[in-house]
């Protein structure tokens, strides 16, 4: 463009960006980070084993399914949608993979099939959301019911064992370079998710659709395709989590992952992603998921009475979030 250049007004009223500014600008991530540190400090003081290597690796391994699915859920929620069906998809794939392995199919093939099943389920739901304009809450709530129903039907309510002598169970139990394989898988998924979300046009459109879908459409982007893809990712990653869980438990069950969707959404929202769309943070999601996992683990280590566990868990979350909101008041998210 060659149009007359006018000197931009001087910036006499800008002051340099301080560390504090930067912290406040990332209000929600800063908040959950502080909170996470607070939880870690609390439990390392009150219990013996919390920061032991064994326990830390244990927590990482346990939270792998949560982290994997939360990666996709961050994208879904950032578009302004929600996926309530992830727990059911996890149950379906864990049950189906056990059945198929039990039936003698090679486990590598089963894994590929399960990922395809997850992607297909996501594509069907995504179609209704993106192309038919039905609210994602309704679509995936129906999905939650249908998909878990399928798992129940296939297993008859019984859990299906997976022989522990095949390589497949390594997916949930193996250790590589001193790290549990599920944790490595989760880390890889998170890394890819982080890069996709922050460094690619696709990730940019995900945020844009949540902020103003019509604006993104007017910019010539295929918003429906992007939305569909987000649900496909969510379905596939829920399937991956189902495989990891089945391998770790050595069984597939239609019971798996009940209420999992709420845990995942809680982790994502705790991390600072807005349920109204347009604001998402992958780092926040990681911290949110680890915080949830750390609280669960720490309270067991602290030998808290199980009658008090739900009360204490809820209170910790509420009070800590509240304190952080007071610190970050005026900055950060608006709703």
């Amino acid at each position, binding site marked *: 463009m060659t149009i007359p250049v006018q000197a931009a007004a001087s910036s006499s009223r800008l002051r340099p960006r301080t560390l504090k500014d930067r912290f406040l600008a990332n209000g929600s991530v800063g908040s959950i980070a502080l909170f996470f540190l607070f939880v870690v400090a609390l439990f390392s003081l009150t219990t013996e084993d919390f920061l032991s290597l064994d326990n830390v690796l244990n927590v990482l391994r346990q939270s792998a399914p949560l982290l994997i699915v939360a990666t996709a859920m961050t994208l879904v929620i950032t578009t302004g949608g929600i996926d309530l069906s992830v727990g059911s998809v996890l149950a379906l794939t864990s049950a189906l993979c056990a059945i198929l392995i039990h039936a003698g199919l090679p486990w590598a093939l089963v894994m590929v099939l399960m990922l395809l099943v997850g992607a297909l389920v996501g594509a069907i739901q995504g179609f209704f959301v993106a192309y038919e304009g039905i609210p994602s809450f309704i679509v995936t709530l129906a999905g939650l019911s249908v998909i878990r129903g399928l798992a129940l039907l296939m297993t008859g309510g019984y859990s299906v064992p997976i022989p522990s002598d095949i390589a497949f169970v390594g997916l949930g139990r193996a250790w590589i370079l001193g790290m549990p394989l599920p944790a490595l898988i989760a880390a890889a998924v998170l890394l890819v998710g982080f890069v996709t979300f922050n460094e690619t046009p696709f990730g940019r459109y995900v945020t844009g659709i949540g902020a103003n879908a*019509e604006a993104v459409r007017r910019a010539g982007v295929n918003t429906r395709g992007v939305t569909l893809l987000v649900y496909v990712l969510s379905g596939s990653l829920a399937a991956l989590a189902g495989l990891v869980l089945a391998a770790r438990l050595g069984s597939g069950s239609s019971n798996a992952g009940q209420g999992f969707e709420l845990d995942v959404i809680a982790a994502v929202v705790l991390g600072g992603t807005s349920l109204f769309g347009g604001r998402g943070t992958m780092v926040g999601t990681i911290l949110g998921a680890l915080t949830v996992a750390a609280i669960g683990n720490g309270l067991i280590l602290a030998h808290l009475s199980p009658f008090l566990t739900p009360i204490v868990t809820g209170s910790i979350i509420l009070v800590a979030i509240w304190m952080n909101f007071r610190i970050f008041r005026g900055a950060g998210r608006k709703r």
Partner: protein
Amino acid sequence: MDGGVPRVRMRGISKRYGTIQTLDDVSLDLMPGEVLGLVGDNGAGKSTLSKVLSGAVVPDAGTIEIDGRAVAFASPAEARAQHVEMVYQDLSLCDTVDVAGNLFLGREPRRRVLGIPFLDKPRMRADAAAMLTSLGISVPDITVQVENLSGGQRQSIAIGRAASFDPKVLIMDEPTAALAVAEVEAVLELIRTVSARGVSVILITHRLQDLFLVCDRLQVMYEGRAIAQRSIVDTDIEEVVDLIVGRKFTARSAGHARPAGHARSAETARPARSDRPSDSPGASPP
């Protein structure tokens, strides 16, 4: 106007929303390099008509031709593929995305690594800064989310986005509504520059004096119909006001005090345009 294939030719465009016939059999022609002022009362249907051309609204009836070829835009992506760009009245920005992200929305500079397209963020930032400077806009911080910008700053970003991607047809729906005086000048200058390069421009504005600084022709809409066309040299502000309002109307705010001086206003306005090709259908697109 006559002779030559029009860049845009819309015929019989109609659109109804519920009980209201927003557009009723509207036609519009636009030559290459021509600047068309589209004026009319609030709710006359200007925005809707231009959204039809940009693909954001699918009309109930009517045909569109671009450079003589019939097109039917089912989405803005298809219109953008034909180099039709639009500055929307509601700006259509993503509030939670930063300035550079909004400028390049849908046209992000990419860097392929292993075949995967990544955002070329350094280039986006550099180009964005250059684009804004060229529009005379100062934004305090290019990484700020646009929801924190002032009204005029937001508008500038919407303009920058539409103007920067080599349009053949540039539609501006009240682009200067929120702009301060220097920024308005820059936008008018921008319109002159691009139309000199052969870009066809549709300018929708309620600042009637601006029309006389940049337009070749005016089209007036009234209650969903195109009711009049005027070549800019054949009309003056008073007539335009009367056409918009639909009856004789005295508007002291319309840029020129009345009754004195209106003859001169058209005169002083015209020479300003002498530097640009006049209605040249042959001007080649950039």
